[in-house]
């Protein structure tokens, strides 16, 4: 028992969703129900006061985490990852089952919880430290280390509302990184910040894990899960779908995710009918992948052929800041390649384009892809102003690439690496080379 850091037994969490279903027929009914309801709610907190749908965000979770384990929790959105972390962090109470914890817990479900924009960096370090459970003396003794880690330097006495988002996140993570728990619970904190910052976070996390502390880590970054974690837990629909080593868990998740994605018959995304940012400049209708005959294609692409991504949109106002881009990812959502009409040679300047309906196309660089699964994503932004479709959005489409040039019998095994090439190799006989031993 002593080597168990955390254990859950039959853990479940239920939420009530949905609107009022009951019909009030008379005013008298309405009034008596209204009068009775507050008391019902006080007598049975957390219970439904009216008919509503029950949603089990978590069900029957039996989990044992040994001391020193680094557990990666993966699963799709809504699989129950965040709810599990909330229950384990004692933020919300389980509906059924129990959690047993041996040791001091610190949880980091969000970077910069309780940061106050009016306060300076110095003040926020103290406040955030206390919120995360540090004692006053502890904050004092770690203060210099936190400042150094955050690299905010001379902005220490500036209100954080004047910080760039990068500085803000660095400072917030710096405080959290200096928590000293035996069990650390971390939600997707790596989703924010630039590459340099993410590298630093991952470094700190592996340092913590290396010290023999127990870490529970939720992430969509499969590479990070594989690198940092020893064991893994795959959640699906609030239940345990797989529990094993981190590598196996990631493999299961990827199979699982791609099975659901490839089911899409055509490589197309249609924008939902709701307002999007910068609606006065552009309205993106959607995009699709077509072949050289301009026909929409399904989930399989061949590397020797021509494909284009066709982005359709209404331009409502000419604006030089408008940018479209495409992101390519591997199956574990690792970013591989980003292209955009400002980085590449497009010659398009939206400052001089008349308002109207347009289709913007860009060819897919399939010759760079291996025989494996990839994902493509549409991005759109107003330069330096904000995103219309930011990376990690709902436009992602999954496809498989089949390389027709990999037909050499010796190249049947899939290539190593994320990318391939179509580089022409040549062989030249050297005239002066003496033949050795023949």
């Amino acid at each position, binding site marked *: 028992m002593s080597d168990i850091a955390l254990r859950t037994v039959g853990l479940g969490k239920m939420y009530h969703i949905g609107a009022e279903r009951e019909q009030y027929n008379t005013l008298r009914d309405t009034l008596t129900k209204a009068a009775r309801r507050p008391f019902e*709610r006080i007598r049975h907190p957390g219970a439904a006061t009216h008919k509503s749908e029950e949603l089990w965000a978590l069900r029957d979770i039996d989990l044992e985490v040994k001391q020193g384990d680094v557990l990666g929790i993966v699963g799709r959105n809504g699989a129950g990852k965040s709810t599990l972390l909330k229950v384990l962090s004692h933020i919300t109470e389980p509906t059924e089952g129990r959690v*047993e914890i*041996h040791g001091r817990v610190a949880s980091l479900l969000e970077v910069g*919880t309780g940061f*106050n924009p009016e306060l300076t960096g110095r*003040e926020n370090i103290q406040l955030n430290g206390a*919120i995360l459970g540090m*004692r*006053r003396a502890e904050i004092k003794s770690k203060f210099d280390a936190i400042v150094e880690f955050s690299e905010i330097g001379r902005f220490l006495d500036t209100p954080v509302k004047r910080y760039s988002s990068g500085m803000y996140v660095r400072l917030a993570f710096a405080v959290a990184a200096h928590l000293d728990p*035996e069990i650390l619970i971390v939600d997707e904190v790596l989703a924010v910040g630039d590459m340099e910052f993410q590298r630093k976070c991952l470094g700190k996390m592996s340092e913590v894990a290396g010290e023999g502390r127990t870490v529970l880590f939720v992430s969509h970054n499969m590479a990070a899960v594989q690198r940092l974690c020893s064991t893994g837990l795959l959640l699906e629909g609030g239940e345990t779908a797989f529990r094993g080593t981190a590598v196996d868990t990631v493999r299961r998740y990827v199979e699982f995710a791609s099975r659901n994605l490839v089911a899409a018959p055509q490589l197309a995304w249609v924008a939902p009918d709701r307002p999007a940012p910068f609606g006065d400049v552009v309205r993106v209708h959607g995009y699709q992948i077509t072949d050289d005959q301009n026909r929409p294609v399904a989930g399989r692409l061949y590397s020797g052929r021509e494909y284009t991504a066709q982005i359709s949109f209404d331009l409502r106002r000419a604006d030089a800041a408008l940018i479209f881009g495409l992101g390519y990812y591997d199956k574990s959502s690792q970013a591989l390649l980003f292209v955009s009409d400002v980085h590449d040679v497009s010659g398009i300047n939206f400052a001089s384009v008349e308002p109207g309906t347009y289709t913007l196309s860009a060819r897919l660089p399939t010759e760079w892809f291996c025989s494996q699964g990839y994902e493509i994503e549409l991005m759109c932004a107003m330069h330096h102003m904000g995103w219309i479709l930011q990376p990690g959005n709902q436009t992602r489409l999954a496809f498989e690439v089949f390389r027709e040039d990999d037909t050499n019998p010796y190249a049947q095994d899939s290539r190593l690496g994320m990318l391939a090439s179509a580089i022409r190799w040549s062989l030249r006989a050297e005239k002066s080379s003496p033949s050795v031993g023949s």
Partner: protein
Amino acid sequence: MTESAKRGAPARASGTEGFIVYERKRGWAALDLGELWRYRDLLYFLIWRDVLVRYKQAVFGVAWVILQPLLTMVVFTVVFNQIIGVKSPDDKLPYAVFSFAGLLPWQFFAGALARSSMSLVGNSNLLTKVYFPRLVIPLSAVLGGLVDLGISFIVLIGLMAVYGIVPTWQVIFLPLFVLLALASAFAVGLWLSALNVLYRDVAYVIPFLVQLGMFMSPVIYPTSSIPAGPLRLAFALNPMTGVIGGFRWALLGQEFPGSYLLFSTAMVAVLLLGGLFFFKRMERVFADVV
């Protein structure tokens, strides 16, 4: 497994051998004062944050804290004393000092009430992301008002000096009345903050409640002018009647509000205990519904 673990006592241990169990608690949860004490540093920093932010955002900062009761006192003196003719119960005591001594605890109470009732909703980001004893939040909102009270107390001292009034020896009991005011505000704040999470309408009721409350408390008139009978009993149940009477007794040597104080203290005790139980009962759903 220990007995306390089986019962699921929420013990957040700070030692290395902590063993904690979280599960659904049934019935009325115990009030864990030990846990609250372990989180005293968080309480300190939340009060510090509220005070700091309050004074940073306001252009006049501390000046506003001095001006607000001072201007109110001036208006009261003009309207109630000069126009309507409300008198201080003592000929030697100017109405300005009399009303200011009543305004002091009332404004503390009103401010603490307004802040604490909004405190849980206003800190919803903390409730959904971090664990700590939830009582810390309304408590910090109430305690933060002590800074304002201290500043306006200095103003009162100045005002008394101007009128040449020397506090009586009873002033040593003043901290007790401050404590009672604190308990009153915390008691009502517990109810309102928890109710506000469940029913957002509470936020609309509070300004109205505070406005009515001032007239229902002896701020602008002395307790002696409350007519005897059932009306007097109703006033006695208002916790602030005893507090304000007590302030005037301790500072200005006015009549000791004996029976009022008794009723008020009893009322505070009932509200506070009820509020604590209600709050502990509801706190388990805060993170889900806030």
